[in-house]
């Protein structure tokens, strides 16, 4: 399933906390260097405009965190109670 559809399953009330946790994964992973430069620049663009806790910002953060640290991403989504989302991600 496309990231757009996955992110739509996150309630807007949880966008802020999800964004915070995905940012932490992206910034602090030892595999942060796996981030493609183009995606990094897109994330910086949304960060500058305070849009990382929006649907579009979360799509790019999720794309990055799955690429950099899929296990931690799954763990964070489980912790936030997004079991359905985890199932979709694991099967994709």
């Amino acid at each position: 399933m496309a990231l757009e559809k996955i992110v739509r399953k996150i309630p807007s009330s949880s966008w802020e906390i999800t964004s915070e946790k995905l940012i932490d994964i992206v910034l602090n992973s030892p595999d942060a260097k796996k981030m493609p430069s183009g995606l990094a620049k897109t994330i910086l663009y949304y960060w500058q405009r305070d849009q990382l806790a929006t649907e579009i910002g979360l799509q790019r953060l999720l794309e990055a965190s799955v690429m950099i640290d899929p296990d931690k991403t799954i763990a964070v989504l489980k912790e936030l109670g997004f079991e359905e989302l985890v199932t979709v991600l694991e099967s994709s």
Partner: protein
Amino acid sequence: MVEFGIEFVPRDLYWKTTFYAIQAEKNGFNTLWITDHFNNRNVYVSLAIVSAYTEKIKFGPGVTNPYMAHPIVTAQAVSTLNEIAPGRVVCGLGVGDRTTLEMVNLKPSKPLATIRESVRIIRAITSGENLKMEGKIFSISGAKLNFKTTSGIPIFVGAQGPKMLALAAEVGDGILINASHPNDIEKAIEFINIGVDKASKRLTDVEIAAYTSFCVAKDQKKAEKAVVPVVAYIVAGCPESILQKHNISMDTATKIRQAIIQSKWKEAFSQITDEMIEAFSICGSPEIVTEKISKLIRVGTTQLVAGSPIGPNIRKSINMIAAEVFPHFREKEDKQYA
């Protein structure tokens, strides 16, 4: 009115440094300094990308040195940055980090004359002058940039020893004092006064920045652990006079420096004591660092630079500074100036 600066080391991936720079701007830091070491990512490339993603924070090399980069190249670089972000560029200049200079067999010889002439060159070239000079160190037979520059890029001189502090105050717009302890800043201001007198300036004409090694975290132990590598570099490159003031032997500093040069990190870091952390960093919980910053301001600091490592988790520490440290100073100022 005290300003707050923040320093990033481009050892990190470029997009991380840029992410933190955007965060620093959002959180109200006034100035962003990026260090210049040949073995990290290039300072001007890093600053150029930061400039593209920020709108108001001032920024510049903190500090570059005239041994690795000829001052004419520095003038060219900061002038180009000033075209990208007019009025936001500052230039930090110093003798450089002895440890990295030694790696390429560069010796910071005649530092006073080198810095004096470098400031003259950078100021002239960034102001669009056609410069001819015959100095003790640099000889320029006629140099001018082929593009228009706007004058007024403030030059900050990094200083620690008495003569360099006086020179920094004499020729610079600001002094970046490599110190975190109020006694060191207080002593530094004595020499800064000599420099401003010589240039017929007032003390208030120069910005006095405490360029600190800074580390804030809720957990004191975590903060101390994160600051150790930076303190090791500071002790390794520290002048003997400063070491003596803090009862640290030159022999210990030499051992730490040798260990760093040989990449024996464990050996270098194991020699860092609590006293060294106290002398050369602002480290601890938000309450502790607030108290330490207050002391620095009381002795005359006008800009507090939160230097590397900032915290065990940089993003959280930047937020912590904005939420728990800034209000102590900014509210006070608001009341004071209301």
